């Protein structure tokens, strides 16, 4: 099955700093999403981005499907950005539709 690797596993930032999170995947995908899980366990969908670039406020994401990676950019980080960021992919072949494969996540801590 598809492998999803995220880096770095941990990241500590000072408030106001920028960061880039990376997601590598081992096969072609039909679906790629970025999620943020806050310290209370809530999982929030940030982007649906199987290819191309999207922006939402201080967050943006780029997926280069041909090279099998995606990047999540966080600018001017805030303490509320703390939590775990997950990349998840889906490949519709081989009976895998509906099965999002999650990476292990990047744990972000933003210090005031």
């Amino acid at each position: 099955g598809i492998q999803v690797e995220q880096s770095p596993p941990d990241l500590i930032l000072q408030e106001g700093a920028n960061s880039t999170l990376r997601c590598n995947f081992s096969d072609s995908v039909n679906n790629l999403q970025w999620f943020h899980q806050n310290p209370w366990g809530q999982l929030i969908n940030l982007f649906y981005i199987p290819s191309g670039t999207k922006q939402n406020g201080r967050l943006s994401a780029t997926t280069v499907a041909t090279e099998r990676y995606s990047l999540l950019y966080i600018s001017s980080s805030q303490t509320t950005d703390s939590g775990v960021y997950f990349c998840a992919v889906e490949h519709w072949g081989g009976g895998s539709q509906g099965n999002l494969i999650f990476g292990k996540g990047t744990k972000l801590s933003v210090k005031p």
Partner: protein
Amino acid sequence: EAGVTQSPTHLIKTRGQQATLRCSPISGHTSVYWYQQALGLGLQFLLWYDEGEERNRGNFPPRFSGRQFPNYSSELNVNALELEDSALYLCASSFGMLFGDGTRLSIL
């Protein structure tokens, strides 16, 4: 518009018991996905229901089962509970994968 709702928030059971978790998707969404987030194992796909049918299931034993009702709400049943079933169980609604707040299941 109400989001995905899950109940109960917390559930405490003992080994060998059965647990029932519930999920209501966003109004108009016909698909429900169940995921397990166990400590050290990450988020793993459990089940996908759409239009009342089970469409796909992850690599979990048959004691994990569920169903989807005509109003598209869903139940996840876990029989013969084991200690390693302790986890956060998350339900998501349709293609956008909008998740509920989860049910935290603890097995004593």
